[in-house]
């Protein structure tokens, strides 16, 4: 892992994916094939989100409060 830039890029990609999936869920509302799969994909994406927390970007990530 080459550093904070890479983490930042990953987090930006995750955010974009989340935004796209939220849009998919909204546009697919009422169509189970779209809505249910979008919800499932968002749940899966959550597993990525918890792996890359914003605190990882802070230079001095020692703040407790």
């Amino acid at each position, binding site marked *: *892992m080459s550093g904070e830039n890479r*983490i930042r890029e990953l987090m930006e990609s995750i955010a974009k994916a989340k935004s796209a999936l939220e849009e998919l869920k909204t546009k697919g509302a009422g169509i189970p094939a779209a809505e249910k799969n979008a*919800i*499932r994909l*968002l*749940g*899966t994406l*959550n*597993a990525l989100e*918890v*792996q*890359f*927390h914003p*605190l*990882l970007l802070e230079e001095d*990530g*020692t*703040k*407790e*409060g």
Partner: protein
Amino acid sequence: MSEYWNPVLETLPPNRTRALQFAKFRSTVEWVYAKSRLYRRKFDEAGFHPSQLKSFDDIRKVPLLTKDDYRCQGVDPFPYGDTLCVPLEDVTVFHQTSGTTGTPVYQPDTWADWEWFSECWATVMWAQGFRPSDRLFLPFGYNIFIAYWAGHYAAEKIGCEVVPGGVLGTTERLMKMKELKATAFMATPTYVLGMAETARSELNSDPREWGIKKILCAGEPGALIPSTKKRMQDTWGCPVMDHVGATEVGAWSFECTHEPGGLHVLESMFLVELLALDSDEVIEKPGVPGRIVITSFDRLAQPCVRFDTKDVSMWSERECGCGRTWRILEGGVHGRVDHITKVKGVLFSPVAVEEVVRSFDELTGEFEIIVEKDGDLDRIRLRLEMPPDIEGEAQDELCARLLSNLRWKTQLNFELKREIFGTLPRYALKAKRFLDRRKEAVK
């Protein structure tokens, strides 16, 4: 490809891990206080509010959660009651605990929670060397107990080929493993040894020749008891690594391929504390036994906050050659607090007996410990299965050596009852080898 599932988190400096844990702990506490009737009630009764969390030390103000707290389940929203933190329609899977320590706990998970659970398992399995080239056989019943469900999904996530071995009997499972040339499997230590015994007796086959490259053990202590680990490794001819998790908690710890003699705590997903055996004092010093208290982060439907597992361990001071900065629990889980008891005034742990019994290669390794009262005095008996090929004086000498070793290890004199080979129960999941009948006598 990195040797770590998440190289950033697994090698993060400890002070940054701690900061991350505090941030996640606070989010979790705020979540459960807002969403769960149980936690709102507990925190209010204890005079605690999430706004009191200003620093890591404030975590100790949060009241402990125990299995007794789950008695509030069974009411609406049925069946989870006061523990549920999400709308019932968001729950996509039900599991429950085995109930070995009392009334089973119901555990709901949303799809996001279930993906989180398999993410934890993926971290564990990647650390144990599971890779897309593995054909993983799961000799598991696929039922309401959580057991290896998440291991199945994590293995798929990693890219392994998963062979579900549910429903089949032990012999059929072994035949399928051999037929498909499985490279790995998961089971409790009891079943790992049981499967090997069946392979030899029913299939007349030596499991060491099957090409199994790794075994993940979970569900009960054993893989970190040196003699049990050696017995499993010798029997199957491959590394055997421990993983400890719990239905209410998640997959919170693992032994890596470097086998450091303990369990790495998955510190990015959980906060693990050790509390004194007889008080709520937090233990930070290595080498001091304490009971394991765990908070799970990022599990939304029914998180556990400072859940007292009643399991015992101690921090290690060693660093692992794997390079992970996550702390290690020395020797893994040593046993249950309620199994660590005084017998004849001496502190006793059943794990010590397993260590001695399994160090004798001549023995089958099957045993049972019974503690009971004889008037006012404690009596401790060991039922021990005898090997079929050792009799007479040779058996007497074996038993004498065993009792001597037990006396040295535990400071106790055991009454030995020799049992015929095959008469003690074989378990497919957790073994029940310790029976303390003194408590029944009191009732």
